């Protein structure tokens, strides 16, 4: 095994009985007690995750906003201070280098928060594109100096509110506040997440991350707040149909194929991948992401073939028996003309063809969205 990286919370995970597994070059807890229990905690109460393996790059300079408009498909220069957006970052081919969040802290100060497994590749890509772009753009990899904790679930605001005098309600969906004091630590907090629930992502100094994680658990002990691993993070994001890099999107899958067209802004001028994506849009992609429900109990897993009238028409990108809904569901890249809800399909699970049909995405949407 190659050397795995560890987050500042590694000792805490081990002390709390986290089952450590390799993920994207990092040694991370997949669960502490049970993926299903942790999943339920986030849907019904709240759960806290170590996501310090994510990468953070700071992009500064007079031309930073213009550079970002060229780098990604969404429109970072439309952000105001304290606003956040989600975006794919594409190759000239239209395939995805990664998907990420862009934070704006000032007219010339941005952060990119990228996936752990792709962070080194992303940094090289962003650096190279910045050089090609020219102008006043500086890129600094902050990753090793930032601990990140996600605190997600309907009780997240109430519980986190016990640790700060800051008015958390003033942070809107996809907004961020800096310099917030939480339990004596100065942190950056955004109302963002990867679970389909309300909640926060908290960026802290690495040396504060463990005490913050424990402080949140302590503040939420009476409410059944649990520490959660990557297993629940995956099942939660799956139900909410949030893409996972390497499964729903990759260098071979475009945002249009992955159903992320609303994050591609055609009116903003040139960006990397625009020509390829525009041509794909005009012709219509030959495959698209669809939600499937299996009509019998089985576990659809990535790469299982998807069939329509006996013909192979695609494959599963993610799938599981949904912990919240109790039904076997899958995301699958399939022939583009077969994505209307109700379309009959089948998924080959080992030697069996399990009947299935297309259903609407997302599978799960929380009530009372803010």
């Amino acid at each position, binding site marked *: 095994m190659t050397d795995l990286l560890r987050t500042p919370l590694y000792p805490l995970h081990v002390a709390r009985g986290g089952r450590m597994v390799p993920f994207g070059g990092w040694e991370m807890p997949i*669960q502490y007690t*049970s993926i299903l229990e942790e999943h339920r905690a986030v849907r019904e109460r709240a759960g806290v995750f170590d996501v310090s393996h994510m990468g953070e790059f700071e992009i500064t300079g007079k031309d930073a906003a213009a550079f970002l408009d060229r780098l990604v498909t969404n429109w970072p220069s439309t952000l105001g201070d304290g606003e956040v957006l989600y975006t794919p970052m594409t190759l000239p081919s239209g395939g995805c280098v990664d998907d990420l969040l862009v934070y704006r802290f000032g007219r010339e100060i941005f952060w990119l928060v990228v996936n752990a497994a792709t962070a080194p590749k992303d940094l090289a890509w962003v650096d190279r594109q910045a050089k090609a772009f020219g102008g006043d753009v500086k890129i600094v990899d902050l990753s090793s100096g930032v601990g990140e904790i996600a605190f997600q679930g309907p009780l997240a605001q109430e519980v986190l509110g016990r640790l700060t005098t800051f008015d958390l309600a003033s942070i809107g969906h996809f907004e961020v506040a800096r310099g917030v004091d939480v339990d004596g630590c100065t942190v950056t907090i955004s109302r963002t997440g990867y679970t389909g629930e309300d909640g926060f992502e908290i960026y802290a100094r690495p040396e504060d991350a463990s005490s913050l994680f424990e402080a949140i658990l302590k503040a939420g002990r009476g409410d059944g707040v649990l520490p959660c691993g990557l*297993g629940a993070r995956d099942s939660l994001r799956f139900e909410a149909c949030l893409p996972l890099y390497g499964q729903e999107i990759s260098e071979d899958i475009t945002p249009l194929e992955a159903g992320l067209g609303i994050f591609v802004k055609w009116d903003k001028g040139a960006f990397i991948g625009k020509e390829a994506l525009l041509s794909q849009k005009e012709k219509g992609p030959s495959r698209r992401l669809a939600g499937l429900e299996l009509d019998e109990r*089985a*576990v659809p897993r990535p790469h299982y073939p998807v069939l329509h009238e006996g013909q192979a028409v695609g494959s599963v990108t993610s799938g599981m028996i949904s912990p919240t809904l109790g039904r076997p569901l899958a995301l699958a890249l399939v022939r583009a003309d077969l994505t209307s809800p109700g379309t009959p399909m089948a998924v080959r699970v080992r030697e069996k063809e399990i009947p299935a049909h297309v259903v609407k995405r997302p599978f799960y949407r929380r009530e009372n969205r803010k």
Partner: protein
Amino acid sequence: MNVPDGLLYTEDHEWIRVEGTKGRVGITDFAQDQLGDVVFVELPELGRRLTRKDVFGVVESVKSMSDLYSPVDGTVTATNPALADHPELVNQDPYGEGWMVEVELGENGTSGLLTAGEYQKMTAAGGH
């Protein structure tokens, strides 16, 4: 880790409880713990003839799946009907309510299986 005496075990983490000419088969506490939350168990048809080490089913947890290997030669006489709606019984009670199949033992009986002590030693040594 719970490894009851009186049962026999395989290197693949199945157990068998023999009573007369029949044996009831499941997976061990160690196995269920390694798998995590079990969400689906695929079991064989009644009457299927098994040879020792045949794959007789599959147990799927949230994150992984694992083949089930027959500890003995024999014929499937029953499968646990409760697992269809309650696969979590495999986690909650691996040696009881979480049993998987019952087989009529073939000629070779229970040869080649591990005792509780031997199985415990194997898993303690970091067995797969």
